[in-house]
């Protein structure tokens, strides 16, 4: 999905702000969100981390940039809980107002009226899987990435589309996020580390001697 989350190479965000001696959680609400993610799983609203990542990709893009990391998680958790019918937007809004919240404030959650059904029991706790066929590419192979994006969840960042790189590692077959996020099964695919020269990604503006590595699934790749 060509969403705000796909940040690699975007310009204009300015310098990195570092907070010295940062705590694991800045406020109780951040830990609340963390615990609610687990609760959403127990309530059957969340089946896998690919589904959760896609729920975050679907939140309000302005909230994505302004509500912070746990605000994004909150948006994803609320999206999934509403989609699963565990809570309703109206009852949550009422409790926000009761706590002095602004009823007109921007809400990150963007529940779909026709959500994917992700009834999923993983085949193993680890995301690695065994498949019968051999990997298509070997270490050293030159590969070309897909040129276009897709509407759903995917792990090929926009900045690396339509680019040529070289395979540096073959990691075996793994659960395929593009399928798993949408409840279409694990559909395991071979996973490769592919290295791209900075110039292949950024042209003449690339910094000297930079190489960018991505972990890419076989369906994202063609022989170059």
């Amino acid at each position, binding site marked *: 999905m060509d969403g705000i989350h796909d940040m690699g190479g975007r*310009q204009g965000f300015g310098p*990195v702000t570092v907070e010295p001696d940062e705590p694991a959680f800045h406020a109780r609400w951040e830990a609340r969100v*963390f615990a609610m993610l687990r609760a959403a799983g127990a309530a059957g609203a969340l089946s896998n981390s690919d589904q959760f990542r896609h729920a975050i990709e679907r939140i309000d893009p302005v909230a994505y940039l302004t509500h912070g*990391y*746990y605000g994004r998680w909150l948006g994803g958790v609320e999206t999934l809980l509403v989609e699963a019918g565990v809570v309703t937007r109206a009852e949550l809004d009422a409790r926000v107002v009761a706590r002095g919240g602004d009823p007109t404030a921007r809400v990150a959650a963007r529940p779909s009226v026709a959500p994917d059904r992700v009834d999923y029991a993983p085949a193993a706790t680890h995301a*690695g899987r065994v498949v019968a066929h051999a990997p298509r590419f070997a270490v050293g192979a030159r590969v070309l990435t897909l040129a276009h994006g897709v509407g759903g969840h995917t792990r090929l960042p926009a900045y690396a589309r339509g680019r040529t790189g070289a395979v540096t590692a073959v990691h075996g077959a793994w659960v395929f996020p593009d399928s798993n996020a949408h409840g279409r099964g694990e559909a395991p695919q071979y996973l490769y580390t592919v290295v791209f020269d900075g110039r292949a990604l950024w042209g003449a503006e690339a910094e000297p001697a930079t190489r960018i590595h991505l972990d890419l699934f076989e369906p994202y790749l063609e022989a170059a």
Partner: protein
Amino acid sequence: MSDAGDSEREPSIRAEALEALLIERGLLTTADVDAVVEQYNERIGPLNGARVVARAWSDPAYRARLLEDGTAAIAELGFGGAQTDKLVVVPNTTTVHNLVVCTLCSCYPWAVLGLPPRWYKDPAYRSRAVREPRALLREFGLVLADHVEIRVWDSSAEVRYLVLPERPAPLAGLDEAALVAHVTRDAMIGVARP
């Protein structure tokens, strides 16, 4: 840009409201929240990774195992799980510097580093690490010569990356336990050198 500030007042209230609803439904207890705080404040943090690096600095055979199969090598020290299905450890040398990012979300090797710092999850770091890593590292105070190759690892699948810094020469005489204190989280992400 930073994620911190007043913009989080509304999400914090909404989180409290959602927590109250889930508690009413019997889906959450305040003890669950306490457990999360305890887990990441006290049990899972960058000290785990520092112990791994200090062992690798002290024991060449362990270093070789760590680079061969990071997942198995950290399991020797009791670390694993926590969003770290496969760990790949990438070593710095005098001519290679490694830097870890996740441009699509905020993937991070929780099992060895705990929860990521805010800046790791902020748009500025995620957008710039793949495009202008040298400029980014200079802001962190790390100036690398142009002949030092920068290898950026964008964590786009379930593989997690940990940078193995070079042991600084002045630490040569220290034992493993003393070395732990010299291994920083930032060095294991790649935005610093110890």
